[in-house]
């Protein structure tokens, strides 16, 4: 139990002393998660829009598949991405293994079902009067789509927050695809895994608290943004 307290003090110590390895892990975590969430939103919101807004044959089945993928274990995603980006794999020539973009690919796969499913839900529950309102005010097809997504921005933002949480806290993909290479692909979560494996529980807790602090800062930022665009 002492390692819980130990962890708290160590967390503060790491941050205040500017510990190089910790800050390197923080930097890598921020880079990877930003890359991942950006990719996830850019791909996921349009796809979620199509799934929620349009009708097409097989829509229900597709929705079922997306919902199932919400339970995709990160280690398995890591394995799949490794198979793709390994030298032997189809994307081998891009040299993505053991790199930050490589991890991002896996984390995007992790985040996409969340964004797609929740965006689709948000759009399905949009007020049915919206479409006619936009049309009668003179909006063309493109403007209707953009304005509809904007009307659904609150649940979509919530989806983004959820996806970010899942992305920034995962270990399976970062470990498998990133390789936990010190200074390069050691994220906070892979560092926690390493320290815990070495029996350094206090350090593990410390890094966990650092991660929560980062998550808090990010969410604070998003919260403020949400208020300002109300």
């Amino acid at each position, binding site marked *: 139990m002492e390692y819980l307290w130990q962890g708290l003090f160590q967390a503060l110590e790491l941050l205040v002393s500017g510990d190089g390895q910790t800050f390197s892990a923080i930097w890598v975590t921020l880079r990877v998660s930003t*890359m991942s969430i950006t990719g996830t939103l850019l791909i996921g919101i349009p796809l979620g829009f199509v799934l929620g807004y349009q009708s097409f044959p097989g829509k229900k089945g597709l929705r079922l598949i997306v919902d199932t993928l919400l339970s995709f274990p990160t280690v398995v995603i890591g394995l799949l991405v490794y198979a793709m980006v390994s030298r032997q794999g189809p994307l081998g020539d891009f040299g993505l293994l053991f790199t930050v973009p490589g991890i991002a690919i896996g984390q995007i796969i992790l985040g996409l079902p969340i964004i797609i499913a929740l965006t689709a839900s948000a759009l399905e529950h949009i007020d049915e009067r919206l479409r006619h309102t936009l049309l009668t005010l003179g909006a063309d097809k493109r403007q209707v789509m953009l304005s509809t997504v904007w009307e659904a921005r609150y649940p979509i933002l919530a989806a983004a927050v959820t996806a970010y949480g899942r992305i920034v806290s995962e270990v399976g993909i970062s470990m498998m695809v990133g390789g936990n290479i010190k200074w390069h692909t050691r994220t906070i979560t892979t560092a926690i895994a390493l320290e815990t494996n070495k029996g350094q529980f206090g350090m593990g807790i410390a890094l966990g608290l650092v991660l929560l602090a980062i998550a808090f800062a990010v969410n604070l930022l998003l919260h403020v943004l949400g208020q*300002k665009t109300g």
Partner: protein
Amino acid sequence: MNRYCIGIMLIVSILLLSPSQTLAGESLMMATTTSTDNTGLLDELAPLFEEDTGIELKWTAVGTGKALELGRNCDVDVLLVHAPAAEKLYVKKGYGVDRQEVMYNDFVIIGPASDPAGIKGMQVPDALRAVFENKAIFASRGDDSGTNKKERSLWDNAGLDVPEKKSWYLQTGQGMLSTLRIAAERDAYTLTDRGTYIKYAHSHQGNPPLSILVQGDKSLFNQYSVIAVSPENCPDVKYDLATSFIQWIVSPDVQKAIGEFRLLGQQLFTPNAQ
């Protein structure tokens, strides 16, 4: 609203666009084992290597099986592992070249102070037979790691089948420290490398629940070797950088540094490159 949006986009751009590689110098990718990495030896050697050659050593620490696979798949340039039988087969199959022995440390069999099977001070084959006959709980890595391969070979040497399905044989599928923790929990015997044991004992203020019962046996020898990934099998591999590393690590000065490496005040490795 616009100010905040711009601010956020700026932060995101900085994070996305900063270069990930330090652009100066070349880098060499190594696969090694978690137990090797955990000793901290590489953390000490890597900066020396970069100083001497200008090459940055990057390594990923995985299980022995995975390390060999990474080499087969051409995902790394050089291997530092400790599973001689598997390594020799590997080289024979053409996946690795220029195998050189570098250093050794040893394994020890540890167990609870109560020593239910009475193995203290025995030779390894007798000790394992005693465990088997007494059905004493034995924790195994069970993960195809170098340690695991060594353990399985010891059962074989004792004339016993690996006790796969026995209820007293616990296959944890995890790293060495996790396995030690489980062994302590279950009052079990286990095979561990000395390095991990030193750390484990230290974390218990020198008074751990498991102590060394069998050591010094020739069969507990843990030989580390470095292997370059075959450039024939992997045309894109950085063979020249791997060669630089191999030549560097067997050089007299570096061998001396390896011998002088201390883990929590204790010597861990004995250099033995030819």
